[in-house]
């Protein structure tokens, strides 16, 4: 009797303690998400209709799906994500393995690898637009040493998007390095010792010890990177602005333009809803694939 009274009291305290967080979350995070869903069924597609609440069914969705520039931006988002994820997964893993070996000044070297992560893509954009300036930048000066004309990087319709993805991934490397380093520390030392006695080469150790031990960490990193790769607005604005032309315009830029330059708020909301659903589906598929792989 007394116990259930205490439990009820505990539950009451529990609800009381989570209330401030949940209220702020509901008002400033959850409601706007749902509101976007509602706006996407209204007609707020010009400056005059900013407060319009007329229900138009799926009209905005049909407009978006029929629109060529939506699919173009969609494709750009996927290209950005694939390059961003691949770069981070590969180099994060390799650099962590390198930084796990002991050498003189390792702590200072690690700090150098972490610094880009605490800066932002607008600042990095300013610096990289200088470094990658096609005619006068120091990177292409290296190409000129060999009498080769360097690539045009952000000014090239073909290269702008991949270059932006690589620079954004470069800036985010620290998260992957630190996470992999933490996981590498968990590998029992005697496993290495056995491998040493067996005469395993460095590559064999990576292949048969490090990789199997790190698989759960790598899957977790892949999940997080997948989601983060869609948070690309700042990177694209900072590096290419979506150009040249629309060659690096991703969905987040399209949403911004449609809403704040063309005043098509409902169309932009529908684009946001479609893209959110896409992210959730990709994530679900990935989770399924991951559990199937783990059970194999």
């Amino acid at each position, binding site marked *: 009797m007394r116990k259930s009274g205490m439990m009820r009291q505990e539950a009451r305290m*529990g609800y009381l303690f989570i209330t401030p967080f949940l209220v702020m979350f509901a008002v400033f995070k959850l409601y706007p998400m749902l509101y976007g869903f509602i706006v996407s069924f209204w007609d707020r597609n010009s400056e005059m209709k900013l407060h319009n609440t007329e229900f138009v069914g799926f009209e905005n969705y049909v407009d978006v799906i029929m629109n060529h520039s939506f699919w173009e931006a969609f494709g750009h988002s996927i290209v950005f994500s694939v390059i961003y994820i691949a770069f981070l997964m590969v180099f994060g893993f390799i650099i962590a393995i390198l930084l796990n070996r002991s*050498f003189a000044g390792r702590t200072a070297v690690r700090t150098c690898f972490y610094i880009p992560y605490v800066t*932002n893509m607008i*600042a990095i954009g300013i610096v990289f637009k200088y470094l990658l300036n096609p005619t006068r930048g120091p990177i292409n000066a290296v190409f000129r040493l060999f009498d080769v004309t360097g690539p045009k990087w952000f000014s090239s319709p073909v290269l702008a998007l991949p270059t932006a993805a690589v620079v954004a991934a470069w800036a985010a490397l620290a998260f992957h390095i630190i996470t992999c380093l933490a*996981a590498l520390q968990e590998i029992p030392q005697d496993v290495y010792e056995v491998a040493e006695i067996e005469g395993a080469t460095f590559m064999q150790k990576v292949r048969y010890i490090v990789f199997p031990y790190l698989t759960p960490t790598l899957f977790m990193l892949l999940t997080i990177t997948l989601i983060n790769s869609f948070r690309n607005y*700042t990177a694209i604005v900072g590096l290419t602005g979506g150009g040249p032309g629309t060659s690096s315009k991703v969905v987040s830029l399209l949403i911004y333009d449609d809403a704040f330059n063309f005043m098509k708020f409902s169309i932009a909301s529908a684009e946001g809803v479609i*893209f959110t659903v896409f992210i959730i589906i990709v*994530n679900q598929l990935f989770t399924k694939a991951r559990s199937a792989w783990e059970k194999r």
Partner: protein
Amino acid sequence: MGKTLRRKNRLFTAVMWVLAIMMLYPFVMMIAISFRPAGQAYMPLFSRDIIHTLRNYSQVLSHPNFADWYRNTIVTVVVTILIRLVITLLAAYAFSRLRFRGRAAIMAFLVATMMVPGETTMVPRYLYFQQIHILNTLWSIVLPETSEVFYLVLLTEFFRSIPGDFTEAASIDGAGHGTVLFRIFIPLSGPAIATTVLFSFINIWNNFLDPYLFINRIGMQLITPALQFFQEQGGANMPVQMAGTSLALIPVIVLFIFTQKYFVQGVASAGIKG
């Protein structure tokens, strides 16, 4: 054998240092160019003809709004961290130590919402914040930031790692949950709170999308979106842009170098718990 091994190690160390310098190279260039006159922006790093000048910095610092951007950013950082800590610590205590119906489901729902990027909800957020009249105020940045699920997960996981004996001993002594939280959990959570403060500082300092969307008056702007504005205004003058960028980045980089331990701890724990 020993000799080749030592030589190999020395080569490895050298390669790692070269890689480290390559990582820093963009920031070295940023600082170097910020001291050059406009005409010498594209000269090589170690060119002997370079004249060093402080003109770019005085030009940035004399911008009528520069002090405002710094002040706004610091106010936003401080207010957000204070509110975030209070409401997140309370919730983290409940999620880690108190049993109530729906606890796991609520947490799972909150974590699931982390999948939705702010990019896809910028339009409804703008329209809604306009309706509730917080556009062009720092509240439009602070209020949505206070309930970040990431920090809730971080602190909840940390509280879970505190041994149960602590709480039991305290409740036998008749201490309420408020007392246990403030007298036992918070004092034991120094590292987790330090990580929260540090991450919050870095993230809010570097925040671009939200202030860029919600703040339209230049005097109300924060430092990172102001850099973008500066870039558009400054046009071709590279050294002035670099001076502005240096001034915007140096506080976070310095803070990071001194608090790296907490930063690494935070990333590692966030990563491992996923």
